């Protein structure tokens, strides 16, 4: 379970995230929606211990991410833009990540198979297409077979087949009783995958509930979204 309470992040006079709070429950896919610059990535970065909150807490099973000794065994994360060094082979990229959390080496091959990169494992990351880079990021998130997945824009750069694959992956994960937090700006994708929806705009949470609750009285998630952020 992920519990975010009163999370605030300021840069000088600018408040990027303002008193954000929501809960992500196991067995459900939670869509985290918001326009560009709304504070989605900043919230996720604070949850994952990359950025310091000005105030508030973001807890994973009651603990801060920074306090987890081998975090990748609990949380798998894909962050928009954080990739492998171009000159390093994909298999080496995953190997160092696995070693850092004492994940067996055999798991590297397993996740490469799972994301469809087994044949390109020894290619350098710089030669990967955008879609392959995204798959490599997802492979890194899956390495520790974590109970919680945090995915920031996971379908960016993927072809329709890849998008379908991500959809089934997160569904399987949630159906297995695990926790999935999925940040996106794609309404139709989120509507197809999410059980719960959290909408953030200008750094504040403007809606938080089940997909049905958030879209009640609207034709679609998209129309609900635009009304909420207006």
């Amino acid at each position, binding site marked *: 379970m992920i519990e975010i309470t009163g999370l605030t992040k300021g840069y000088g006079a600018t408040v990027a995230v303002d008193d954000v709070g929501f809960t992500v429950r196991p067995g459900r896919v939670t869509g985290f929606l918001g326009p560009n610059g709304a504070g989605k990535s900043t919230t996720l*970065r604070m949850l*994952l*211990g*990359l*950025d*310091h909150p000005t105030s508030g807490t973001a807890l994973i099973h009651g603990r801060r*991410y*920074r306090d*987890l*000794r*081998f*975090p*990748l065994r609990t949380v798998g*994360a894909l*962050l928009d*833009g*954080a*990739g*492998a*060094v*171009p*000159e*390093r*082979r994909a298999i*080496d*990229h995953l*190997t*160092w*990540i696995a*070693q*850092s*959390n*004492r994940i067996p080496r055999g798991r590297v091959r397993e996740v490469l198979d799972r994301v469809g990169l087994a044949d390109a494992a020894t290619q350098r*990351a710089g030669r990967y297409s955008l879609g392959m880079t995204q798959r490599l990021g997802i492979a*890194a998130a899956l390495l520790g077979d974590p109970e919680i997945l945090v995915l920031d824009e996971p379908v960016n750069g993927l072809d329709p087949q890849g998008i379908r694959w991500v959809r089934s992956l997160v569904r399987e994960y949630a159906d297995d009783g695990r926790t999935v937090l999925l940040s996106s700006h794609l309404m139709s994708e989120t509507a197809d995958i999410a059980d719960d929806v959290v909408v953030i705009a200008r750094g504040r949470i403007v809606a938080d509930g089940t997909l049905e609750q958030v879209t009640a009285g609207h034709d679609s998630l998209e129309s609900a979204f635009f009304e909420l952020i207006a």
Partner: protein
Amino acid sequence: MGALAAVRASVRAEFTKIITMRSVWIATAVILALHLLIQRANLGSNTAAVTAITPQGTIEIFTGDPEPARGALLDLMVAGSFQMVLFLPVLAALIAGQEFRSRQLDRTLLAVPHRGRLVIAKTIAAAGFLTVVAVLIAMISIFFLYAATRAWDPGLATSADALCGQAGFLALAVLTGLVGLAFTMLGRGTLAGIGATVVLTVLTMTRLLARLSPALDAMLPLSAGRNLLLNPAQNTLSSGPAPALIVLLLWPLVTLTATGIVLYRQDAR
């Protein structure tokens, strides 16, 4: 599972990061090849100087400057290794600089969110790799000293004095390399690390600071290296070997501690 196991896992991961970077291997090969070339180029003149050692045991490595052969040849070997020390912080900057390419630092901190453990792991892994490179440099120096002196004293290159000189070089190489690593992390990029290294090198090599204030010059890492390794009878030094060793130990200690504090306090952007 203990904290020690976590540190060991982090060190292993950091070492894998180093040895899977093509640019690190290319830079290592260039440094070793350069040292080989310089040593090879000097072999003829050094062998000729050894052949001309007088019955009194003096040698003229530099024409018109006779000096005791044994000490002069050992100084020559240590000085040969010492000049390669300039390149090791650049290698360390390449090693640390990878964190700031493709936002790898995000991925690193997701894997090892404990900043203190990360800095310790980076330090140990980089020190290990730099030690291997420094040992290879020392071996090349020893080989060429042996090649030049084998007809006169075949045991000189592997004597206790020679190995002691190379041990000092190893310490200097690793410690200054770690300073380059710390500056790269503090400056958040390979160029910052290389830039800081160049500034420190220029301050020492131009002897500008040494002329203005020897005490201040003695505080520079490369000056401390000179003070530790070079013969005061042959070189103008700004302090003795004991203060030099303290200065050399303090530089990586202070800069790496600062790196840990900055990583802890700042956002990973």
